[in-house]
């Protein structure tokens, strides 16, 4: 017993070492979803399968309420459509009125100007820090655009600051499409050059030319449709050969970014509430 105690006392720095390493690794895994997902790969394969099966079964029970919501939404849209048609009918000649109508519909999005106070380019996961936070109305998962194009998505917001996942981050994943054709894919950055990112999962039958403009698709509430992302610089086949892999020259110069705007979707809260309600039913 005494020998054991002596042993423990002599080698107590081992415990301090392990304790500190564990503390730092816990911090690492709790903050960083990428490492977390790699670390828990085997566990995820099991729990993921379980969730997939149970979700597959449960989704049948929600079909009825989902149907009802869709129907409701359909009638609302139909009513809006007839209203807008009627409004357009007698204002065909006056283009000013039509412009005003278009402006009205884009009022869904409001922007908050902010300054970038910290920025990195060459890490695997790059973040930006903005000088505005919750008190200015910034919440996580809002889109951030610069003067030239897309910058990133808000990750965390404190009272007066917020951290943004820039496009130059392995976690960033933005739905984009080619302007004038509705083929879409998602934008991923492979670490390395900060001027280029890749558009993945674009179907093989999509038509485009080098130099075409890439814009956001507007499928999520983060970015409205049509925000500039970049231009097609080069094309290749994806690894599995099922889709195109486009090299995109980003419109935003991340090296000298300073003024950005955070996009807040006025109707997002309403939409999410509705979606939450649907889930709860």
């Amino acid at each position, binding site marked *: 017993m005494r020998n054991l105690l002596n042993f423990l006392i002599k080698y*107590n*720095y081992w415990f*301090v*070492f392990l304790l*500190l*390493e564990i*503390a*730092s*690794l*816990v*911090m*690492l*895994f*709790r*903050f*960083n979803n*990428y*490492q977390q997902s*790699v670390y828990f790969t085997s566990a995820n394969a099991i729990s993921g399968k379980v969730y997939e099966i149970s979700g597959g079964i449960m989704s049948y029970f929600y079909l009825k309420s989902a149907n009802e919501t869709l129907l409701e939404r359909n009638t609302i849209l139909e009513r809006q459509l007839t209203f807008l048609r009627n409004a357009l009918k007698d204002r065909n000649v006056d283009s000013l009125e039509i412009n005003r109508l278009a402006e009205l519909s884009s009022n869904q999005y409001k922007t908050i100007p902010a300054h970038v106070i910290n920025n*990195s*380019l*060459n*890490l*695997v*996961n790059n*973040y930006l820090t903005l000088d505005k936070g919750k008190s200015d109305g910034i919440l996580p998962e809002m889109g951030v655009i610069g003067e030239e194009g897309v910058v990133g998505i808000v990750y965390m917001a404190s009272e007066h600051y917020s*951290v943004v996942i820039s496009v130059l981050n392995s976690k960033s994943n933005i739905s984009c499409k080619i302007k004038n054709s509705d083929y879409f894919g998602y934008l991923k950055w492979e670490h*390395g*050059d900060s001027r280029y990112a890749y558009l993945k999962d674009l179907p093989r039958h999509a038509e485009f030319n080098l130099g075409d403009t890439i814009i956001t698709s507007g499928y999520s509430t983060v970015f409205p449709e049509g925000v500039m992302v970049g231009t097609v610089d080069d094309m290749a086949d994806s690894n599995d050969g099922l889709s195109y892999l486009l090299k995109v020259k980003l419109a935003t110069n991340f090296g000298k970014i300073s003024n950005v705007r955070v996009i807040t979707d006025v109707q997002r809260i309403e939409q999410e509430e509705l979606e939450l309600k649907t889930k709860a039913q």
Partner: protein
Amino acid sequence: MIINYIYRILWFVGLVLLQVLILNNIHLAGYATPFLYTYFILKFPSSVSRNELLLWAFFLGLIIDVFSNTPGINASATVLMAFVRPPLLTLFTPRDSFDNIVPSFKTIGNFSFIKYLLICLLIHHGALLTIEFFSFADIGSLILRIASSTLLTLSCILAFEGVKK
């Protein structure tokens, strides 16, 4: 005694600010970043207790992490380096030297000092950059990054030592 601690804390603050404000933004050829804050751990006198050194290393790494949005990465690498430092130091110290030395050219000899720095830095940078990449998918660029960053930090430290002399 107190003076020693005040000096140490000044060094701590100075190196953290230097690292966070200037050196973290250096990427020579897109690969090499100097991690000069390790100098703080490398220059502890050999008489310091292992636990004290580990704690200093942890808080140093943690503060660097907080500033660079990478919780845990710098802390774990620096703690690892502080853990392997005492055996490495005894390995490179001449037998007949005094008990309490601060590692430098004068105290342990030119060649031994460079070897000591090189091995410590390789361990630190290797752990740091591997955790940051977290996969060996791109092992070529990872090794290139570790090697170039180590050489850059080493030359920074040697320049520092030269100026201090």
